[in-house]
C-alpha cells in the first residue's frame, strides 16, 4: 500500500501491481498494446506472457547489473537489455505459432517502448535486489495480463460470441446464430471498452470510499 510506512513486504510488492498500482487501470501505462491486441483472448494471454517474460528477465538482469551500470548510460543500457529480450520473445512466438504472430502484429516488437517495462526498470529493478525485482515484475506482469483480459474477454465475447477463439479451447457463448458486434473487435471498440471499464472502476472506488466514510462516521 502506498500509504504504508517502511519498506513494503514481499507480498505487497507482488500484489500492488495486480490492483492498487495496476499498470493499465491505475497508472495508464502501456495503453497502446492494451487497446491494440485485446480483440482476442488468446492475444491477451500471449501479450501478457510476453510482457511478463520481458519484465522478469530484464528486471532480473538489471537488478543484478545495477551496481555496474553507470548512471549516465542507465537508460541506454536498459533499452539494450529490454530490446534483446523482446527480440527473443519475437522469435519464440514465430517458432510456436505463425497465426498468433500474425494477429499480434508489430505489437510484440513494440514491447520495447512499453512504458511499463522501462518504468519498472527505472523505478524498481535498478534500486532493488533480484528477488524483489522479480516479484515486482511478476506482479506487474500479472496486473497487465489481468487488465488485458478484462478488455479481451468483453471484446471477444461481444465481438465474436466466443472465448478463446482460434485455440483448441474455443467456447461458443451464444450459439451459432449470434450476431457479433463487429465494432468490439475494431479500433473504436477498444477505446470504448477501456473507457467504460475505467468509469466502472472509478464508480466502484467511489462507492467503496463512500461506504468507508459511512462506517467511519458510524
Amino acid at each position, binding site marked *: 500500500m502506498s500509504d504504508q510506512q517502511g519498506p513494503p513486504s514481499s507480498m505487497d510488492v507482488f500484489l500492488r501491481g495486480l490492483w492498487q498500482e495496476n499498470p493499465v487501470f491505475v497508472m495508464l501505462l502501456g*495503453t497502446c498494446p492494451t*487497446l491494440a491486441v485485446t480483440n482476442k483472448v488468446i492475444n491477451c494471454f500471449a501479450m501478457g506472457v510476453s510482457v511478463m517474460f520481458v519484465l522478469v528477465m530484464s528486471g532480473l538482469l538489471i537488478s543484478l547489473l545495477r551496481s555496474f551500470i553507470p548512471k549516465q548510460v542507465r537508460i541506454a543500457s536498459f533499452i539494450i537489455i529490454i530490446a534483446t529480450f*523482446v*527480440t527473443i520473445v519475437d522469435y519464440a512466438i514465430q517458432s510456436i505459432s505463425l497465426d498468433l504472430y500474425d494477429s499480434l502484429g508489430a505489437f510484440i516488437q513494440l514491447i*520495447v517502448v512499453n512504458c511499463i517495462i522501462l518504468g519498472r526498470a527505472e523505478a524498481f529493478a535498478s534500486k532493488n535486489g533480484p528477488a524483489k525485482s522479480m516479484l515486482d515484475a511478476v506482479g506487474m506482469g500479472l496486473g497487465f495480463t489481468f487488465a488485458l483480459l478484462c478488455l479481451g474477454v468483453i471484446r471477444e465475447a461481444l465481438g465474436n460470441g466466443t472465448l478463446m477463439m482460434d485455440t483448441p479451447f474455443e467456447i461458443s457463448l451464444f450459439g451459432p446464430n449470434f450476431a457479433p458486434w463487429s465494432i468490439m473487435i475494431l479500433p473504436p*471498440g477498444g477505446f470504448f471498452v477501456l473507457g467504460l471499464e*475505467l*468509469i466502472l472502476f472509478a464508480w466502484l472506488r467511489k462507492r467503496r470510499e463512500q461506504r468507508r466514510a459511512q462506517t467511519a462516521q458510524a
Partner: protein
Amino acid sequence: MNTESLPSIFINTLIVNNFVLSMFLGICPFLGVSSKKETATRMGVAVTFVLLVSSVCAYGINIVLNYIGAPYLTLICYIAVIAAAVQLVEMVIKKYSPALFRALGIFLPLITTNCAILGLALFQTQKGYNFVQCLVYALGAGGGFTLALIIMAGMREKLELADVPDIAQGAAITLILAGILSLAFMGFAGLGG
C-alpha cells in the same frame, strides 16, 4: 518491393489507417498532450519531424543489416538509433534555434518512447517501401497523428466547460471521445484506393 502509389500511401496513413485512431500507436502522448490546442500542435510537429528523421535512419539501418545478414539485430538497432537521433536532433535544435527548442524541446525526450516512432520504422520495413515511399509514409503518419491530436484538443477544450460526471472525468472520457472519433474515421475506409 512495394508498388503502392505515393498519394495512396499518404491518404491511407493520414486518415484511413490513422496511426492513433486505427493502429493504436502513440496513444500515450495522444491522451497526455491533447488537452490544449497549442501544445497539441507543437507535439504534432515535433513527432512528425522525428518520424521523418527516424524513417530515414531505419531505411539506412535496414540496408546495412540485410547486407551483413543479421535481421535479428533490427529491433535493437532501430531503438538505439532512434534514441540517438532524437538526442542529436535535440542538441542541434538547441544550438541553432533556441526558439524552436523552447517550443518543441520538452516533447523530444518523450517522443523516444512513443511507439508511433518505432512502429513506423517496423512497418515501413515490413511493407518494403523504397526511400521516397518511406518519407511519404512518415509524413502521412505524422500528419495523421497531428490531425488526431488537434481535433482531440479542440474537443477537450470544449469539454472543460461541460458537466462531465466525476467518475468519467480524465482518461475515461478522453478514451470515449477517441472511440467516437475513431468510429467517425471509419467512414474514410477505402479512400486510399
